[in-house]
């Protein structure tokens, strides 16, 4: 099992290395540099700038320098906002992004699991069809459509909540719903399928033969099995929620990481783009790893297989 854990961590490191390298070279392949946008800088200033940021060195040397620095957790200075380092910029935005992601995940779990359990325990009835219809809608509606729709209805027509920003609790409602709905829908579906499939198992009949009430069967026996696919999805979902809020942050003008990232991309702020990518890749890889470990802890059959494969 330890062997498996080590292998899993190494795998993660490898993925990170690949993503970082790929991003590094892709950005430099893209036409244009950070200092040649419509600025009309004098030639010597331009050269001076390139020198300060070591952009005059061969690309490969830039690459090794960069790798060396991020091993120490230093993501370098921002090219555009020269007064701040990338680390500082990420720190400024990341907490808001985190907050948004955590609320959205919480919202997705409460709504998704409730709907899924409700549908699964009412398999084949109108309750089931209603819940699954809602979930289908949630999955089919991308956030760049759902967001404006919600803003239009609840922000503008009804005027219940602010249409942008991230300060009062009310201002956080629409972004959270916009970001979380797709995941709520997925979770509802996973939960329902898990319950429906588990309910057909012989051991649920055994539980009934013991004289357990339907509620006790659901909590003590059915969910034990049915939650496993849900848990497996939570890791990737958490990672995606924390890193995937660019659209929502831009839509609602939330000063989170996503907005910096989009700005950085427009400005060709190499280190900012790279830094954010590194940061998010670390997050995604870590969450996926955690989710695998969680899966391991929940499933005794996998837990006991020495080095069991978790694909």
């Amino acid at each position, binding site marked *: 099992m330890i062997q498996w854990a080590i292998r899993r961590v190494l795998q993660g490191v490898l993925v990170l290395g690949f993503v970082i390298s790929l991003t590094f070279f892709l950005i430099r392949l893209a036409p244009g540099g950070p200092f040649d946008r419509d600025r009309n800088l004098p030639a010597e200033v331009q050269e001076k700038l390139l020198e300060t940021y070591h952009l005059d060195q061969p690309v490969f040397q830039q690459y090794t320098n960069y790798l060396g620095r991020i091993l120490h957790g230093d993501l370098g200075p921002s090219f555009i906002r020269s007064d701040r380092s990338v680390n500082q910029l990420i720190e400024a935005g990341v907490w808001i992004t985190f907050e948004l992601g955590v609320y959205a995940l919480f919202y997705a779990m409460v709504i998704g699991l409730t709907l899924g359990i409700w549908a699964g325990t009412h398999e084949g009835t109108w309750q089931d069809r209603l819940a699954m219809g809602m979930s289908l809608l949630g999955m089919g509606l991308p956030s760049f459509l759902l967001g404006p729709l919600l803003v239009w209805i609840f922000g503008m027509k009804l005027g219940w909540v602010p249409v942008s920003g991230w300060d009062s609790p009310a201002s956080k409602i629409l972004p959270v719903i916009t970001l979380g709905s797709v995941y709520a829908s997925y979770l509802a579906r996973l939960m329902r399928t898990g319950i429906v499939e588990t309910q057909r*198992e*012989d*051991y649920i*009949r*055994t*539980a*009934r*033969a*013991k*004289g*357990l*009430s*339907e509620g*006790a069967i659901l909590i003590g*026996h059915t969910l*034990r*099995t049915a939650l496993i696919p849900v848990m497996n999805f939570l890791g990737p979902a958490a990672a995606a929620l924390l890193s995937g809020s660019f659209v929502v942050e831009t839509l609602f003008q939330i000063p989170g990481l996503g907005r910096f990232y989009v700005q950085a991309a427009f400005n060709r702020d190499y280190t900012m783009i790279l830094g954010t990518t590194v940061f998010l890749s670390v997050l995604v890889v870590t969450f996926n790893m955690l989710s695998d470990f969680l899966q391991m802890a*929940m*499933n*005794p*059959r996998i837990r*006991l297989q020495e080095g069991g494969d978790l694909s």
Partner: protein
Amino acid sequence: MKRLEVRGLQIGFQTDQGWIPAVRDLSFDLGVGEILGIAGESGSGKSALALALMGLLPSNTQVRGKVLFQGGDLLQNNAESWRKIRGSKMAMIFQDPMSSLHPYLRIGDQIIEPLLIHGLANPKQAREQALACLAEMGISDPKTMLQQYPHECSGGMRQRAVIAMAVLAKPDLLIADEPTTALDVTTQREVLIWMQKWIRASGASLVFISHDVGVLSEMADQLMVMYLGQGVERGSLVEVLKRPHHPYTDGLLRSLPAMQDRNAKHFYSLAGHVPPGGSIPSGCSFHPRCPAVQDLCRTTEQMLEINQERWTACMRAKEGSWKSS
């Protein structure tokens, strides 16, 4: 004294092809402390009967008739009354111990659950009872076993776990649906002997279902043979083995390995097959396969009842003449 009285039980499954009758007009009694063996080929409705007795049939099922147990008709039970008697007054041992145990729960927790939910013991007492019961059944290290998950145990251990789970609450009625088919012969014997001992000691009654008449002949006091959802013969084990009244029973007995004539060139086996689900022949439903069929058998059926414990669905049994033909 009666423990269980089944009267005119009908069970039908709703399927895409319409209603499939699984049990047809079945009536029988089970005495206190008695072991009733139920025999019959695959598809004769044995499992459907067992599940009906426990109220565990799926929702696409229609059940009619009466099942009298401890002064009430089980078929009138609501969810709450079922919940109260299942696992405490009546319990079931399922066929496949692997699939009927929860894969992600420890064996110990699964075994003691009936005791806990019916308030028959606190966790500590329940654990001790489980340990004692497993040890008595010949588990060498019951303590470890309680901590294990089903996949860590052998088939024999799992089967004992399933049995312990059913008997710990000391039910009055135990229903076992092919409890040992998954086991090797030696383990099967041990388990059966233990179950028989337990029934004798506890005074509980047992419905023991098996397609293996050989196993039943070692276990049962009474034997009932089912064919296409009907009881075709019922009597004390000795009586039925010695003098089967129904040609189907006769065929089942003659196809037992122990009954085969050593000098015969071929094994005896029943001719023909059980008709596919739902199609019930007219008259006596066994007539297409019956070696002693007469014209009357194709159109009419008749129950011959010597007394409540001895009956047969073969109208020719009284003459005893089918045996010579």
